[in-house]
């Protein structure tokens, strides 16, 4: 059976960079969805019939 090698410091550094990149992408996605929702709603919420 193949046993995985332990992570080297380089592996851990790359993993950290990937994690940071993924966090950045998620934050950008949240902003993208929020702004796009506002743009698509436009004035329709304020002007809705109550």
């Amino acid at each position, binding site marked *: 059976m193949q046993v*995985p*090698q332990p992570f080297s410091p380089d592996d851990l550094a*790359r993993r950290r960079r*990937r994690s940071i990149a993924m966090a950045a992408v998620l934050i950008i996605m949240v902003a993208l969805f929020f*702004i*796009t929702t506002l743009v698509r709603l436009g004035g329709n919420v304020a002007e809705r019939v109550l």
Partner: protein
Amino acid sequence: MAQRPAELATETLPTTLGGQGDVADFVALLKPRVMSLVVFSAVVGLVAAPGSIHPWLGFVAILCIALGAGASGALNMWYDADIDALMKRTASRPVPRGAVSPQEALGFGLTLAIASVLMLGLFVNVLAAALLAFTIFFYVVIYTMWLKRWTPQNIVIGGAAGAFPPMVAWAAAANSIDLGAIALFLLIFFWTPPHFWALALFREGDYEKAGVPMLPNVAGRPETKKQILLYSIALLPAASLPLLTGTAGNLYAIAGSLLTLNFIRLAMAVFKASARENEDKASKKLFGYSIIWLFAMLLLVLVEHLLALPLWTAVF
């Protein structure tokens, strides 16, 4: 002291837990250079389309198209890792190099593909999303999995995948497909064969080694040179379609004609080249020029629309 089996295995097997690629490796999976041309052609389609789209939604549409192109690139690299490893041009890609595992490339590509199509459908319109989904399917399944390893006409038909982005962007802006969108599609569609066959001429050995049936190693170099010339001549009517559909104007007509005639001149030089060395030199020149040609033709359409220059009256 005797080693325990696990320690022994750890020392002798080059196995890792996977997922050791750097951020740059995942960026490379997106084929950034191809993506930049896709984004540019999509911007042209978005600007040239009739009707208006909110600038933010236009940005979102371009972003989704770029993500879709990236997804296609990642899925292509997942499927083609075996032949990529055999070719000098592609051997250093993340999957054959071992930086990213095939499973990671597959997961990454599928996630991006699904996300880009869903986002385009939810935020912009369903027609554009359906076209983007079809584009990804066409590139990955029709071109990569089927045509590429089967027929030397692979890039003629498969080239459609690269021609779709301006049409997707057009659909995003206009929520319809007009003849102008088809004209932009055909412009890129007819550009693809001479562009890739010029590359295949000076990279013939690579494709042969990988068993990819490109025209030079199947039909021979003289036939390839003839086909390059014929498709280059076909660019002249194809490049006039944006004029006839009212998508371009005088600036495009004059500059575009000169650019296309120069394209044909360089294709003729490839056709006439006799010694292998001269052929390679001429085809490298044509390959480089073909990239500039497409960029310039699309730029002309973009400039005419941005400056609101008068366009030709549509014939069709």
